């Protein structure tokens, strides 16, 4: 493409959002928002949960109508009635949650809704040609015949991205696409995004991981409670100043100060090994009230380790001891009885009953604590629920609200509240803050810290390294199912951890 032509395109094809306003019932979720998106620019939108980021994208994608203001692209007013309408006008959105159809092949998924046809029938040949062209261009390794369910999570996301790329969209939006990916996977996604930037697309990017935003974006727009706070060049901001803009006040540190744990060893894992070698000779001790962080790239055994400790999965050799007391393997009921609880990664499917009330979710695992003559006592139950809603600061108009109506952060608080009600001794967290805004994240971290002060031992795995660094007393890095490093105190920093999770360097 000639440079002059390129320049003229930059002048032309901007996307302008003017005085955009949107109500849900009486709630104003977007109020007078003005943003201009330029081609060849990666524009990040940040804000807490409920700030209106996702709503903005959904309006741009035609999923929601808007109540006031205007959207114009290329100097033309746009009003999309459906996602299909938006697609026709070269708008594309990569969703936060996977929208692929698992049973269908990669090819069928990619061309769904925009099949290539010949005489009214689907032309596989043409589709495969296009697929190979994309494969050449973006350098990925996926077979077009493979059913999506056979692909790894990161590849599934890649397919999701490809689906948008295929349409030759000019405006490409990413709604927390990276929240399920680990750093390496996210990095390969960024390579693709940068490639798109070079070909002069408008890119809108939402993420809760501030590191990523600083790494990739050119401009950052901050939203708060549906209002525009500011749009700034990324270079002019620092981590702290951005957080300040997002929350409207200064958070010195998201993470509370670390307190030295007690000396007695409370919980220990000895030589945990599975037959398929996804875990190899894992041993570590946890002192009472200690927070142990597990760091590792996705798929190096961290999930399996937590599942084994919680009794969800079986291991083949090794021992788990709590207060010198052997915990039987592969038995969730026994583990729970002994006070070992897992807060799973996917709260929606593994931890909550979405279509039940907040109250019922809070009480479900320990109904008998509020027995009176072997029958659940309504009054005790209501008291307990009110206490934990209050204590956990769960934002809901009544405990009778469905959990599905709450935001992600509040849902996670319900999970936490449920687990705390059982008076645990060892708490396992798998990605406790995935998809949660900064403020709630801090609340949850504070909560975990107070728990450890009260003498609960905590084992936490997160793909967000800062989180691990911020909260842990001790960090173990995992690589290919083995523990590669044990880090304490000043050793806990990004460099040490990165070395541990990227190489098979032996334990020190």
């Amino acid at each position: 493409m000639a440079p002059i032509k390129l320049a003229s395109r930059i002048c032309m094809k901007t996307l302008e959002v003017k005085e955009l306003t949107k109500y849900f019932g009486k709630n104003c979720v977007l109020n007078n928002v003005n943003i201009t998106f330029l081609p060849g620019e990666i524009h990040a939108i940040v804000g807490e949960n409920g700030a209106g980021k996702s709503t903005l994208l959904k309006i741009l994608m035609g999923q929601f109508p808007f109540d006031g203001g205007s959207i114009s692209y290329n100097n033309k007013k746009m009003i999309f009635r459906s996602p299909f309408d938006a697609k026709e006008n070269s708008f594309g959105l990569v969703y936060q949650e996977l929208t692929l159809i698992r049973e269908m092949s990669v090819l069928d998924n990619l061309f769904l809704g925009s099949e290539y046809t010949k005489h009214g029938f689907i032309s596989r040949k043409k589709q495969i040609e296009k697929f190979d062209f994309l494969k050449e261009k973006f350098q990925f390794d996926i077979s077009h015949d493979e059913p999506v369910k056979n692909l790894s999570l990161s590849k599934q996301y890649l397919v999701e991205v490809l689906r948008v790329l295929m349409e030759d969209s000019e405006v490409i939006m990413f709604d927390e696409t990276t929240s399920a990916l680990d750093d390496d996977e996210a990095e390969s996604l960024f390579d693709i995004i940068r490639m798109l930037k070079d070909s002069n697309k408008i890119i809108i990017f939402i993420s809760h991981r501030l590191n990523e935003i600083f790494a990739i974006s050119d401009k950052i727009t901050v939203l708060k409670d549906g209002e525009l706070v500011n749009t700034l060049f990324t270079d002019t901001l620092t981590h702290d100043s951005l957080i300040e803009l997002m929350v409207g006040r200064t958070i010195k540190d998201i993470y509370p100060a670390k307190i030295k744990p007690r000396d007695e060893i409370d919980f220990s894992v000895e030589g945990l090994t599975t037959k398929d070698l996804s875990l190899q000779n894992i041993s570590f001790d946890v002192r009472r009230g200690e927070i142990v962080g597990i760091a590792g790239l996705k798929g190096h055994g961290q999930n399996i380790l937590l599942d084994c400790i919680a009794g969800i999965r079986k291991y083949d050799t090794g021992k788990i001891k709590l207060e010198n007391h052997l915990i039987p393997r592969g038995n969730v009921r026994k583990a729970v009885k002994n006070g070992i609880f897992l807060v799973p990664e996917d709260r929606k499917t593994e931890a909550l009953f979405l279509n039940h009330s907040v109250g019922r979710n809070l009480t479900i695992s320990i109904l008998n604590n509020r027995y009176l003559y072997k029958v659940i006592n309504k009054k005790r139950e209501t008291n307990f629920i009110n206490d934990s809603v209050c204590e956990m600061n769960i934002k809901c108009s009544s405990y009778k609200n469905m959990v599905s109506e709450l935001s992600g952060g509040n849902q996670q608080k319900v999970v936490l509240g449920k687990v705390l009600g059982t008076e645990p001794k060892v708490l396992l967290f798998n990605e406790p803050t995935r998809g949660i805004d900064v403020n709630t994240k801090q609340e949850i971290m504070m909560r975990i810290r107070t728990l450890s002060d009260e003498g609960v031992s905590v084992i936490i795995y997160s793909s967000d390294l800062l989180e691990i660094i911020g909260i842990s007393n001790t960090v173990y890095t995992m690589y290919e199912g083995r523990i590669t490093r044990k880090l304490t105190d000043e050793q806990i920093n990004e460099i040490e951890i990165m070395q541990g999770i990227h190489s098979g360097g032996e334990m020190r």
Partner: protein
Amino acid sequence: MTFKVRFVNHYKRRRDIYNIYALLLLFVIISSILDKDFLTLRNLTNIFTTNVPFLIAAYAQTIVILIGGVDLSIGACISLVTCIMATIGTEGGWWSAMPGIFISFLVCAVLGFMKGILITKFGIQALIATLSISLIIGGFSLAILDKPGGNVSKEFSKPFSSDISLFIICTIIFILIWFMLNYTKFGKYIYAVGGNSLSAYSAGINVDVVKISGFILSGFLIALAGVVSAASMRSGDPTSGEPLTLKSLTASIIGGASFSGGKGYIECTFAGVIIFAIINNILNLLGVSTFYQYIAQGLLLIFAIAITSIQDK
């Protein structure tokens, strides 16, 4: 890529299809060991021709299951069609049956449309919607023909009693459905809507239209099954279709179709029907009482569902 790797990959992708045909082969081998009359041309033809309405009904069921539904009114609809066929144009040449056929197809299409509307627009679960439709149709069938009887034109039913024409009908239907599911947009949309209707919606597919059309298409197949059934019985029967509801469901499930939708193959349903038919046939040949045949069918269904859910784990 070596040949072995390619083969393994190919197998992984098409595992469901290979497994069901391996199972079919196993049943054929077992049956031919159990009874020497099993593997005769006459018996095999017999298995096929007596089960043509069943086969077509199973296709109809599979399509509905693929879009994430289930149809409990298939049997009742087939009974209704036989009643219509046995009361309209009973005498005369083959053309005298034409009005009956036309009405049958129309009625089944309209019923399919109604089921689709109830499910999509009124948000009634497929199970409940089709069950109620089934009761209503049952009443209508009895109103038309209160006991088995009536007559279907001899000239018309003749071709349906010949093996060759039944074979041709089945082949054509199979190819049409297979082609539709694999090479048309509508086919892909059926899988998409059943697999994840939200994703399908965001891909710009009109989910409701696909569901309703699926039920209408299934209605046409049901009508065809009814016509073949009436022609082979040469009469109508308000209850003749009843067993086909559960049989069609069983065959689809044996074939690996998933109740959650979006998973299943027409070629597997075919194998499912044949496995089902072989089991009944071999039990007949061995002189086992019909009562035990039901038990065998039930066990087969449990076996099939267990296999698929273990595989999914």
